[in-house]
C-alpha cells in the first residue's frame, strides 16, 4: 500500500500526519506538491490540516483549485480513499467531494482542545477499528469548523448514513449542525473530519485514540 500526503503552501500538519502514517505503514508516505499536475501512484490520499494559501479568500477554496486537486478528485471518483483532516476537510467541501461548508466557529474564536467524539459509523475504511457508538477523545484546533448544510443536505447525509462522527452531547466546540465532527461519502471512501486524529496517536501525547484510524486504513488497503 502507498499513501500520499498533499502539501499545500501553508499546510502545517503534513509532517504530523506523515509520522502517524509511517508508524502504521512501516514506511514513509509520499509527500505530493500542490503545484504538480498529477498524483504519484497511491491508494490513500491525505489532505492535511493547516492554513493552505493562508486561508485567503475562504478556508480551503484556493487549495481546492490548485493543480493537483484535479487529479485528487479524479482518483477519488476512481475509488481511491481520501482522508481530509481539518483544513483538509474544508478543501474536500470546497472541491465538491463532500457536501456542506465549514463556517466560522459559533464562539467566534479559534478553539484548540480535546473533544469527545462518538463514532457514528464504524464500517468505513477509516473507522472499522472503533466500535459503533464508541466514545473517543480527539483534539480540535480550528477557527472555521462549524459544519453547515441546508436541511435537505443534512437529511440526505442522515439517510445515506454519511455522518461518520459527532461531538458528544454538550461537547460541540463550534456550533456544527447535528454536532457533526466528520462526514463521509456514502461508500465511506472519502472522509472529512475537523478533529485531528494525528495529534492523539501515542500515549506520550496524552492518549492514542487517533491511532486506530491509521491502523484501520492500512489494514483495509494492505
Amino acid at each position: 500500500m502507498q499513501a500520499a500526503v498533499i502539501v499545500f503552501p501553508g499546510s502545517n500538519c503534513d509532517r504530523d500526519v506523515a509520522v502517524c502514517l509511517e508508524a502504521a505503514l512501516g514506511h514513509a508516505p509520499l509527500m505530493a506538491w500542490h503545484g504538480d499536475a498529477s498524483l504519484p501512484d497511491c491508494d490513500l490520499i491525505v489532505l492535511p490540516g493547516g492554513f493552505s494559501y493562508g486561508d485567503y479568500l475562504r478556508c480551503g477554496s484556493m487549495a481546492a483549485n490548485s493543480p493537483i486537486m484535479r487529479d485528487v478528485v479524479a482518483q477519488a471518483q476512481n475509488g481511491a480513499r481520501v482522508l481530509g483532516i481539518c483544513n483538509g476537510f474544508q478543501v474536500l467541501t470546497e472541491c465538491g467531494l463532500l457536501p456542506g461548508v465549514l463556517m466560522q466557529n459559533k464562539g467566534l474564536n479559534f478553539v484548540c482542545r480535546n473533544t469527545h467524539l462518538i463514532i457514528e459509523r464504524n464500517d468505513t475504511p477509516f473507522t472499522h477499528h472503533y466500535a459503533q457508538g464508541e466514545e473517543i477523545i480527539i483534539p480540535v484546533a480550528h477557527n472555521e469548523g462549524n459544519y453547515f448544510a441546508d436541511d435537505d443536505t443534512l437529511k440526505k447525509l442522515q439517510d445515506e448514513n454519511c455522518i461518520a462522527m459527532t461531538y458528544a452531547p454538550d461537547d460541540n466546540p463550534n456550533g456544527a449542525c447535528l454536532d457533526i465532527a466528520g462526514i463521509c461519502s456514502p461508500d465511506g471512501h472519502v472522509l472529512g473530519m475537523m478533529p485531528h486524529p494525528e495529534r492523539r496517536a501515542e500515549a506520550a501525547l496524552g492518549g492514542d485514540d487517533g491511532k486506530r484510524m491509521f491502523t484501520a486504513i492500512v489494514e483495509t488497503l494492505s
Partner: protein
Amino acid sequence: MTLHNRHINETEITDAIVAEHGLTPAEYAEIVAHMGRTPNMTELGVFSVMWSEHCSYKSSRKWLKELPVDGPQVIQGPGENAGVIDIGDGDAAIFKMESHNHPSFIEPYQGAATGVGGIMRDVFTMGARPVANLNALRFGEPSHPKTRHLVSGVVAGIGGYGNCIGVPTVGGEVNFDASYNGNILVNAMCVGLARTDKIFYAAATGVGAPVVYVGSKTGRDGIHGATMASAEFDDASEEKRPTVQVGDPFTEKLLLEACLELMASDAIIGIQDMGAAGLTSSSVEMADKGNVGIHLNLDKVPCRETHMTGYEMLLSESQERMLMVLKPGREAEAEKIFQRWGLDFAVIGELTDTNRMQVSHEGREIADMPLKPLADGAPEYDRPHVKTPPAPALSDINHKVPVDAALKQLMNSSEIASRRWIWEQYDSMVMGDTIAGPGGDAALVRVHGSHKALAISTDVTPRYCLADPVTGGMQAVAETWRNITATGAKPLAITNCLNFGNPERPEIMGQFVGCLEGMGAACEALDFPVVSGNVSLYNETNGAGIMPTPAIGGVGVMADLGKAVGNGFIETGHSIYLIGETMGHLGCSLYQRAILGDRSQVAPPPVDLHAERANGDFLRAAIDGGLVAAAHDLSDGGLAVALAEMCLKNAIGCQIDNLDDRPEILFGEDQARYLVAIAPDSMAAFEAQAEASAIPIAALGKTGGADLTIGETIHISIKELGELHESWLPDLMQ
C-alpha cells in the same frame, strides 16, 4: 514623514528634524563627527534607528554586561539573533524573548501578531525550526475600559500568527495591574531546534559576495517603529497607528520552509532577519560583524508601493523579510527554492572592502556612512540611578476574611484564575510533540523523533520587583528555575525581556539596576546563564511608569520524557509533602493585595538562593529516581492555592490534616518550596533521601476524595473550586 525622493537629501537638517528622529543635540554632534560632515536626511534616518534605545541598548548596555552569560551548555550567548545552548546528542536549542509592547497597545492584533512573527524569524534565521512559542502578557486592571479590547486583540493576534504558521503556543503568563493601563506588555518567546553543527550566524564575509533579499515586498509600514519603541507614550500616541507593522503568517510559513530548505545546503555565508529598523539594521549588523563593507542598490529592492524613497526603504519595518549573503555563484540554486515557495528573491548589493555602508538609488549615491559607528558607536549612557528605598515589613495585619472564603476569592481573582479562555485560542498541539501544554508548571515539548523534551517556562512577579528590585530580580529567575525543575527537567539557560519605564528618571534606572543585580546573582547561583534578551524601556504613559517587569524565559531539558511529572494529583492515596521552609511571609503576597486590600509597598519574601538550589536539586533527583507522582512549585497565593491547583488538574481532592491553618501559613509566599505527591511504596525512600540531603520536608496529608480539606477550617468541593477558577476570565471577556 512623506518626502519626495528628489528633495529628501537636499533638505537642510534642522534641530527640529534631529529631535523628530529621537536624537539629542549631543548625539547628533557625535554623528557629524563620525561622518566628518553633515549627514543628509537618509543618513540621519539610518543613524537615528541604529542609535535608538531599541537597537543600541544605550541606557542598558553597561548593566547587561554584568549578567552571567557563560557555561559549558552555552554555544552562543547574547549578541546574535538568539541564544544557543547544547542539549546533548548533537542537538541545540535556540531561543529568545522579545517585546512588542508599544505597537500592541496601539493596534493589539497586528502588534501582537508581528511580535510573534519577529521572534520566530530571530530563531529560524539561525537555522532552527521553531518548535514552541510562549508569551508573557501584562494588561491594565480588569475594569479599565480598554482592557477587554486589548486582551481579545492581543490573544487573537498571537493565535492568528502562531496557529497559521503551525508552531504550538505552549505556555506563558498573564497579569492584570493598573500600572499597565496605558502601556500593556506583550513579550513573545520562541524556542527552536537545530543540530549543533548547522547553526547560522549573521556575520558576512567575502568581498564581492552577493547580498540577497528574500521574502515579502517592502512597503511603507513600520517606518520608525524602533524609534517609537524608544519614546514615552502620551494621549496622541494612537496617531502612530500607521507605524505599526502588518503581519502575514502565511508568507512567514513559506519563508520558514524556504530558508530551512536552503540552509540544508552550504550556500549561505550569513543571514539576518529584517526586524526592527529592517533593511538598515540587518545590513549594518551583517557587514559589521564580518568586518567588511556593504553596497546596496535600492532599485533592486522588491517594493509593494510605488515611488518609495530610499529613506523609506531603508527604514521600513515590513514583515517577513530576510537578508542573506550567499557564496558567489550559488544565487541560481537559492533563487529556485524561493521561487518554488512563491517568494521574492533579489540580489540587492554586494559586500565591499570599505567598512562603509553605501547606498545607491535611482542612479545616485544617497548614503555613504562608516559602519563601525553605526553598529556600535551609539553612546553608552551611565544614567543616574537611585536605589529603591528598602520596603518595610508588613505589619498590623487585620485578617477579616475567614481562610476558606479567602481561598475561594483568590481562586476567582485576576491573578490566579484559569487562563483557559486565552490558551484554548492558541494551537498548543500542532507539530505533534507537545507532551505538556499550557496549564503546567513548565511546558514540555519533545525533541522530534527522540525521547527527550525541552522544558520551557516564563516568569516574573512584578509586584516583588517594584517593592524590592533586587529580590524581585532574583525571584523571577528562581521561579523560572523552579517551574522547570518541578517537571523533572534540568534548567539550562534563560532569555529575558526587561520591561521598564523611562530610564532618564533615576528611580526607574534604580529599578533596572536593582533587578539586574538580583537576576545576575540568581543566574550565578543556579547555573542558569543568560543567552539572549531584549530591553524595552520608556514603558510609560503620561509620566506614569509600569511596574518593573523583567520577564524571564527559561529552557531546560528532560533527558527521558517518560520520567516527567505533571502538577496535578494523579491517584488517590498518595502522600502529600511540602519541600522547603514555611515562614509565613505575607508581605507583597496576593493575599495582602486581594484579600486585605492593602497595596502598600512592603518587603516581598526573601530569596535564599542556597535553599533554592538545594531544594530544587533534591526534587529533581527524586523525580529522576521515580519517587514522585506529581510536583508543583509554590508561588502566587502560596500553599493553599498550590494545593487547590493540584486538586483541580485531574479532579482529585485531598485531605490535609497536618498543617497550621493560619493565613500566614496558607497564603504566605515563601520561596524555594514545592508540593509533591508520593505513592505509598516510595515514601520511605523519599523521606530517607530528604534526610540524607538535609532538605526540610513535611508530610501534610493524603490525596483523594472530591473535596479540598485543610484541617477544620477549609472544606471546599473540587467542583466549586473549579467553577470559581474557570469562570473569572470568561466572565470578564463576555
